[in-house]
C-alpha cells in the first residue's frame, strides 16, 4: 500500500472510534502542550537575560567594599571601609582601559511635591553615569561635573517619577522636596521598563553624588568623600580578567591589605553573573526536557495499550486483509502508521493548545515568552517518534497473526 493511502486508512480507522482516539492521544497532547509552554517561557526568560547582558555592557566591572568582621562576626554587607573619591581618581588614572566610572549611593526616600508624596529610590551618581549605563536623557539634560562638585540640588528622574510629577507633561524645571531639601528637576531619562526581576527601572531619581553625600546619607567620619559601589566601564579591547587583576592589585595597595590576607572588597563581572543565571535557566530547560520526555513516554504507553486493544478487536479485519492479499509488512505498516497518525494529531493539537496557552500567559502575566519554530518541529517529531516506538509492538503482533486464526476469531 502506498503511504498516502495508509494515512487515509489510518484516519478512517481512527475516526470510527473518535472518542477513544482523542482520549488515547490526550497524554501526548498534554505532554506536547506543556513542553511548548514551558520552553516558550524558559527561552523567553533566557532571551530577557541575554538582553540584560547586552544592556549591562559586556565590559563592566563592579567594585564594592567588602563586609567587615567584628570579632569574627559577619557585620553585614559593605560595612568595611567605604570607597572614596580618591579611589575613583586612582582607578581612572592607573587601571588601563577605563572609559568611565560612577559611584552609586542610593536609598529609598520619599519625594514630596505640594501635598503629594511617594516613595522612590534616590541615587547619587557621578556625571559619567549615562556613559557607564548607556542611558540617555530624553528630556532636559543630565547634571554636569560642576554641579556635582558644587553639590547642586538638581535631579534627573526616570519616566515613572516624571509621570507622577507632571503627568504627560514635562517635569523639567519643577521643584520637589527630597528629605526636606528642595531639588530642581533638570532632566528625564529614557524609559527602560522592567528589569529581569520585575523591578521598575524607571521608578528612580538621580542626583549628583556629592549632593547625595551631604543630603541622603549620614556623613562617614573616616571617609567623608565616600562613593558607595563603583561601576567601571572598560573599552571593548580590554580583557576583563586582566582588568580585574589590575583593579585588585591597586585596591589591595590602596586599602593596605597585608599579603596573605583576604581582600576587603569585591570585584564582580556583572555580565558573568548574568551568564551564570542563564546557565541556571539552561539547567531548568533540561529539567523541562526531561519532564517532556517522561510525559511522552507515559503518553506512548497509553498509545501502545490502546493499539494492543485495537489489534485484538480488529483481529478479523486483519485476517480479512491478509486473505485479500495484505502482506505482513502491509499490516505492520498499517498499524504503525495508525499509531504515528494518532500521535501526530495529538502533537498538533498539543502544539495548538501550547501556543494558545503561551500567548495567554504572555498577555495576562506579562511574561516574556518566545516560541521558537524549532521547538514546534522537535515536539512534532518527538510525537511521531513516540508513535513509531510504542506502535511497533502492537503492529508487529498484528502482522504476525495467523490469517486462519484471525479470520475465525470473534
Amino acid at each position, binding site marked *: 500500500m502506498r503511504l498516502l493511502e495508509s494515512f487515509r486508512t489510518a484516519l478512517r480507522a481512527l475516526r470510527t472510534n473518535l472518542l477513544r482516539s482523542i482520549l488515547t492521544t490526550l497524554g501526548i497532547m498534554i505532554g506536547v502542550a506543556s513542553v511548548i509552554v514551558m520552553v516558550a517561557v524558559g527561552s523567553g526568560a533566557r532571551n530577557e537575560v541575554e538582553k540584560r547582558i547586552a544592556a549591562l555592557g559586556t565590559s563592566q566591572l563592579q567594585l564594592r567594599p567588602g563586609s567587615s568582621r567584628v570579632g569574627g562576626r559577619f557585620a553585614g554587607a559593605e560595612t568595611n571601609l567605604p570607597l572614596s573619591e580618591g579611589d575613583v581618581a586612582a582607578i581612572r588614572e592607573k587601571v588601563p582601559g577605563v572609559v568611565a566610572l560612577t559611584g552609586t549611593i542610593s536609598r529609598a526616600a520619599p519625594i514630596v511635591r505640594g501635598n503629594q508624596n511617594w516613595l522612590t529610590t534616590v541615587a547619587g551618581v557621578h556625571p559619567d553615569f549615562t556613559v557607564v549605563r548607556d542611558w540617555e536623557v530624553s528630556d532636559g539634560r543630565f547634571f554636569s561635573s560642576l554641579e556635582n562638585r558644587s553639590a547642586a540640588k538638581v535631579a534627573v528622574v526616570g519616566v515613572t517619577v516624571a509621570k507622577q510629577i507632571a503627568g504627560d507633561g514635562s517635569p523639567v524645571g519643577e521643584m520637589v522636596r527630597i528629605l526636606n531639601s528642595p531639588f530642581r528637576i533638570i532632566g528625564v531619562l529614557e524609559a527602560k521598563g522592567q528589569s529581569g526581576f520585575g523591578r521598575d527601572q524607571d521608578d528612580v531619581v538621580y542626583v549628583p553624588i556629592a549632593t547625595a553625600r551631604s543630603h541622603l546619607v549620614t556623613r562617614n567620619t573616616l571617609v567623608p568623600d565616600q562613593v558607595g559601589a563603583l561601576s567601571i566601564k572598560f573599552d571593548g579591547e580590554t580583557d576583563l580578567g586582566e582588568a580585574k587583576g589590575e583593579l585588585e592589585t591597586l585596591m589591595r595597595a590602596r586599602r593596605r591589605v597585608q599579603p596573605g590576607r583576604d581582600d576587603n572588597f569585591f570585584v564582580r563581572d556583572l555580565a558573568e553573573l548574568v551568564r551564570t543565571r542563564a546557565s541556571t535557566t539552561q539547567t531548568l530547560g533540561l529539567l523541562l526536557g526531561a519532564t517532556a520526555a517522561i510525559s511522552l513516554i507515559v503518553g506512548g504507553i497509553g498509545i501502545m495499550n490502546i493499539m494492543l486493544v485495537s489489534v485484538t478487536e480488529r483481529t478479523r*479485519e486483519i*485476517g*480479512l*486483509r*491478509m486473505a485479500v*492479499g495484505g*502482506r*505482513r509488512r*502491509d499490516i505492520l505498516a498499517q498499524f504503525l502508521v495508525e499509531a504515528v497518525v494518532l500521535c501526530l494529531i495529538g502533537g498538533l493539537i498539543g502544539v495548538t493548545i501550547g501556543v494558545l496557552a503561551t500567548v495567554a500567559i504572555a498577555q495576562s502575566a506579562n511574561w516574556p515568552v518566545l516560541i521558537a519554530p524549532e521547538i514546534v518541529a522537535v515536539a512534532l517529531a518527538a510525537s511521531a517518534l513516540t508513535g513509531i516506538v510504542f506502535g511497533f509492538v502492537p503492529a508487529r503482533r498484528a502482522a504476525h497473526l495467523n490469517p*486462519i486464526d484471525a479470520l475465525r476469531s470473534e
Partner: protein
Amino acid sequence: MAAETPRETEVEAPVLIRARDVAKLYRLGDQEVRALDGVSFDIHEGEMVAIMGPSGSGKSTMMNLIGALDQPTDGTLEIAGKDIAHMSSDALAELRNRTIGFVFQQFNLLPRTSALAQVMLPLAYATPKPADPRQRAAERLAQVGLANRMDHHPRQLSGGQQQRVAIARALVNNPKLILADEPTGALDTRTSEEIMRLFTELNGAGITVVLVTHEPEVAAYARRTILFRDGRIVEDRRQPGIIAATATGIVVEAAAS
C-alpha cells in the same frame, strides 16, 4: 442431457488446483492430529465444485490450503501452476490477491465502511496498482446488483446485500478462483438461492468456484461434489445436467432426492 459432454470439456480445460498426496498435521500438545491424509484431486478451470463433509472431516483444512492461507505438511498442492508448499508468506499473499477471491459465511466486511471502500480493499494490496480502483470497484458492485448501494455501510444493508458486497470484493481483482466458505450459512432460504444463482452466473462466465458447505441444497448447485471424511476423500461425484436446472432453481429437489 448427455453426461459425457461437460466431463470432456472439463478434461480439456487446464488444471487450476492440483493436489497430490496432500497431508496436513497439527500438533495438539504431544499428540499429532492428521487433519488431511493423502488427498489427491484436480480441479480444472471453469469447474464449480462443492467440498462437503461433517465437521472434523478435513474440509475446512482443505479450504484453507486451497485458499493459500495455510501450507501442507506433506505432498504438493499447486494453485494456478504454483506449488504453495514452499512459498514465502509474501508470495502466498500475492497469490491470494491475484488468483483467489474469498467469500465467507459471516461476510467479513469492515465495520463503518462504505460498500465501495470494501470492494476497493483488495486493490490496495495489488501490484501493479490498478489505474482506477474506484471505477473497477463500482463496476463490480453493479455486477452484483448493488449499483445504488455504493455508499451504504454494512449496517444499512441486508444480509444478502452484504454477501453481494463480499462477492464484489472477491471479484474485483479478476480472480481465477472464487472460494466460498458456507456462503449461505447466515442467510435465509430465498436469499441463499439468489446468492447461489449469482455464483452459478459467475461460474458460467468462466470463473472456477469452490464451495465449502455442509448443506446439500448448496452443494446441489455444483456440478461436482468432493466428500471428505476423516481427512480423506471418500467420494468424488459429478452431477450431470445440473447447469440447466440451476437456472430454474428446481434442481435442489432433484439433487436432494
